[in-house]
């Protein structure tokens, strides 16, 4: 039974290839519906984190409510749910899509359908969303809307005959889009009197109100005073406030079936508000939780150390603050002989890792050293026990290991046909096992079974460079498989540097050892004496490079008037050395610890 309220509600998201104008369109919709006054508009409101804007990606999803008076004279509540745009956050995207009935598909009128467009469309179709194509950037001279319209029909198989032709940048055709949302996207359904089921698709930590859940109510009603239960974790809380964001927090009396909004319940720990969990009424619980819940575990780990040991406490505080707002970040104290006291941190993926590193540096003004990322290996010991190893230095002695397993992923690479050969080569070089190849019109989707550890190295860069940016990929963890793995150590001036050790496949050890030694040779500056760099497996050296001794470093001239200036020059040189780590007798710049990431084999 559909209520008048639900009849006038639309829940949708915007999907697009990067740079096709998703955020700009979102801004125009918010502006047009008066959520933001034009002059108050910060450009691209949804991507509010500085980092997100810089990279043109959305990291966390949010929801904004717009009131739109349509041409039929009725006022509709349009809930725009923004979705993260990166493969590290695939799960979060799937939960956001599950909260919608439809999606606007933005396609650039100059670029046409791109690989990411397809990947997004398929994901939206999986969630049974109504997809409305929108052709953007028609103000550009190189726009070819008719061709792109045909492309959408041919390649994706969507009817694009009434796709609005718009320019989000100059604000052209925005009304058309709003009308299409009203007419093309189905109204939500759900029994508002049934036991409560509300899907958490995002959560956020507010310093004053604690963890706040963004929810889509599937059935039932949630209101302040109600005792709610998180169906998957079992935790219970008393609702303090419910409401919608538009753009600030606007409290409402209740959220009913079909509504999108927020729930605040004095939740102290963000980890109690897991994305994908279902909120129900503790007094009158639903029979079952909504489908698709998954506990998200970090997949990539690295060590983060303060460049200056005195900053350890500050680093700890910063990580604690970041974790308040990021349930998928984990950290535990660890020590390295080379780097001292620091933390082993866990991330969803490489981008997530980079974001955290940059936030530590920018928002907390910390100078940090990051070690090479690692996945979690399962080590089966000869005594029958199994240990999980996320730090190569903790690998048990070779003699005690029966066999090891590493995580594998099912990877899908979407690409135009002409790059298939090159990309298959990339996947094979990454130890990928070919599964199948699916034609999607002009496009191809390659499916591979691949070790996660290979993906976290330079897979992204390689896929992009070998396809001139046209291909994209996503992956999901498919389980652990036995692998022939070895620990690769690096010796500087004869001493093992624990922070540079890594676990690699036996067949990769030789090229990787050689490339690592070469890379280190380039980043370690010449010092007073010659420094041998060795890569070794067990006791066996497999690659060797040498940083030659510094030959000349002297100020040619120094006379009376120069003394102060020259002293200051040397003091500056001394300051520069603070970014170096003293490993035994060798000074190693902090970049060296990340060098492993940028290897060409």
């Amino acid at each position: 039974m559909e209520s008048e309220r639900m009849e006038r509600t639309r829940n949708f998201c915007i999907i697009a290839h990067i740079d096709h104008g998703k955020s700009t369109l979102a801004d125009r919709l918010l502006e047009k519906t008066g959520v933001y006054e034009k002059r108050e508009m910060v450009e691209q409101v949804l991507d509010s984190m500085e980092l997100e804007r810089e990279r043109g990606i959305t990291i966390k999803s949010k929801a904004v409510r717009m009131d739109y008076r349509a041409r039929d004279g009725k006022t509709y509540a349009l809930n725009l749910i923004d979705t993260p745009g990166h493969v590290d956050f695939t799960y979060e995207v799937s939960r956001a899509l599950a909260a919608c009935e439809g999606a606007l598909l933005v396609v650039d009128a100059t670029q046409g359908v791109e690989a990411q467009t397809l990947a997004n469309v398929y994901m939206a179709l999986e969630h049974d969303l109504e997809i409305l194509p929108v052709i953007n950037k028609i103000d550009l001279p190189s726009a070819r809307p008719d061709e792109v319209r045909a492309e959408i029909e041919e390649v994706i198989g969507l009817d694009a005959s009434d796709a609005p032709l718009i320019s989000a940048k100059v604000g052209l055709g925005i009304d058309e889009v709003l009308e299409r949302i009203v007419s093309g996207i189905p109204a939500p359904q759900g029994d508002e009197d049934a036991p409560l089921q509300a899907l958490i698709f995002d959560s956020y930590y507010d310093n004053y109100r604690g963890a706040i859940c963004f929810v889509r109510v599937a059935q039932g009603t949630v209101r302040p005073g109600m005792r709610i239960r998180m169906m998957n974790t079992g935790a219970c809380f008393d609702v303090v406030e419910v409401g919608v964001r538009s753009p600030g927090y606007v409290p409402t009396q209740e959220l009913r079936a079909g509504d999108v909004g927020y729930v605040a319940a004095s939740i102290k720990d963000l980890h109690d508000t897991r994305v994908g969990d279902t909120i129900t009424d503790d007094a009158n619980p639903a029979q079952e939780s909504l489908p698709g819940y998954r506990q998200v575990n970090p997949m990539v780990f690295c060590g983060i150390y303060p460049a200056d040991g005195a900053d350890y406490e500050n680093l700890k505080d910063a990580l604690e603050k970041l974790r308040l707002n990021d349930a998928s970040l984990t950290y535990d104290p660890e020590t390295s002989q080379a780097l001292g006291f620091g933390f082993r941190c866990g991330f969803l993926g490489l981008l997530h890792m980079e974001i955290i590193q940059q936030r530590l540096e920018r928002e907390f003004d910390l100078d940090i050293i990051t070690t090479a990322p690692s996945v979690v290996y399962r080590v089966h010991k000869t005594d029958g026990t199994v240990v999980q190893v996320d730090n190569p230095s903790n690998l048990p002695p070779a003699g005690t290991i029966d066999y090891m397993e590493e995580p594998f992923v099912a990877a899908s690479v979407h690409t135009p046909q002409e790059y298939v050969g090159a990309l298959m080569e990339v996947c094979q070089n990454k130890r990928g096992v070919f599964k199948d190849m699916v034609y999607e019109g002009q496009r191809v989707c390659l499916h591979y079974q691949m070790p996660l550890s290979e993906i976290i190295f330079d897979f992204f860069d390689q896929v992009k460079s070998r396809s001139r940016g046209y291909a994209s990929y996503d992956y999901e963890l498919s389980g652990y498989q036995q692998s022939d793995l070895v620990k690769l150590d690096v010796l500087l001036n004869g001493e093992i540097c624990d922070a540079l050790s890594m676990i690699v496949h036996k067949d990769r050890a030789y090229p990787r050892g050689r490339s690592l030694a070469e890379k280190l040779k380039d980043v370690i500056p010449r010092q007073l004496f010659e420094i041998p760099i060795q890569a070794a497996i067990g006791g066996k050296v497999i690659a060797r490079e040498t940083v030659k001794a510094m030959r000349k470093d002297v100020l040619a001239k120094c006379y009376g008037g120069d003394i102060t200036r020259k002293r200051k020059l040397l003091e500056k040189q001394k300051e520069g050395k603070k970014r170096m780590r003293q490993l035994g007798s060798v000074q190693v710049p902090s970049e060296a610890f990340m060098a492993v990431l940028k290897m060409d084999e």
Partner: protein
Amino acid sequence: MDEAIGVYIHLPFCARKCAYCDFTSFAGEEARIEEYVKTVCREARAQAALFGRRLVATIYLGGGTPSLLTGAQARALLDALRACFDVAPDAEITMEANPGTLTPAKLCAYREAGVNRLSLGVQSLDDGLLAAIGRIHTAAQAREAARMAREAGFGNVNLDLMAGLPGQTPRLWEETLAEAASLPCAHLSCYALIVEEGTPLAARVASGACALPDEDALAEMDEITERIARRAGFARYEVSNYARPGFACRHNLTYWECRPYLGLGLAAHSDMDGRRFYNASDWAAYARQACGAQPREAEGDGSAAERRFERLMMGLRMLRGVDEARFHRDFGGAVADFYPKTVREMTALGMLEREGGYMRLTARGMQVMNAVLVAFLQENS
């Protein structure tokens, strides 16, 4: 009794600025020379009144291009100094000269004024390189200048040479040096080029318009310098300086030993009785300072730790090294008392050694002196 001092007089006039030069010096201001000389003489008298009639062991006319002065102007300056200071009878009096500005008559006049050491800015004996760095003279003029200096009776001539110029190969350097060493001179200054910020050369290097020799090529040039200079009878006594026995530049040793010096003229720096100060680098402000109407800028006299470090920074430039007894007397402890770790490690690495009451850099330590000095700074600063 007060320590003898060195007097430096800055003459900031040039026919043209060279591409690598960041000294305070101006082209096209020759009309000011006459007035400027008078101002410097006035400054000398004012400073003598302040610091007393000190014993002056060395005088150095530097620039700029001091050889743009006439004989009479040079004489006026030196007479002024002799009038208000106790210039030692055996004082070393050096004048820098550009080979493109000299005549036999001018040289005789300088000698008669009291100049007894001439430092010729030869830089290179390759016409292509000379033009590239903006010198106003040719190699032939440089050769001729050295010959003229000898004819004029200068027995103590230095040739300034530059290694590591853009496009210079170790072979080209060897040719210049070998020929320079055969010219009539008693001293060679062989400077590795320093690309100073803000110079036309720095802009050319940054834009990629010219390429500098790399570290290995520079190190090779160093070895060439050592070898050629030694064979020709010049011994190295400082990072960049080579002399025949008895011809080390006494004025410059004043700096390296951290002894007092008085700087006169535009932008000149002084270190007198533990106080450091310097003159303004614009004409009007300097003129006011010279007559006492405006105070000089204090440079910062240096904390004990800074002075201690500077003693090493300057002293280790000399092959002989730092006088340990004097260090102990001035700072109340031995070098190893202040820098135990660095002395121990650098000695173990073969960078530092002690002999005959001096602490000095080894030949290897001399090549990488900055790294050694930074280690001292890191331990105690």
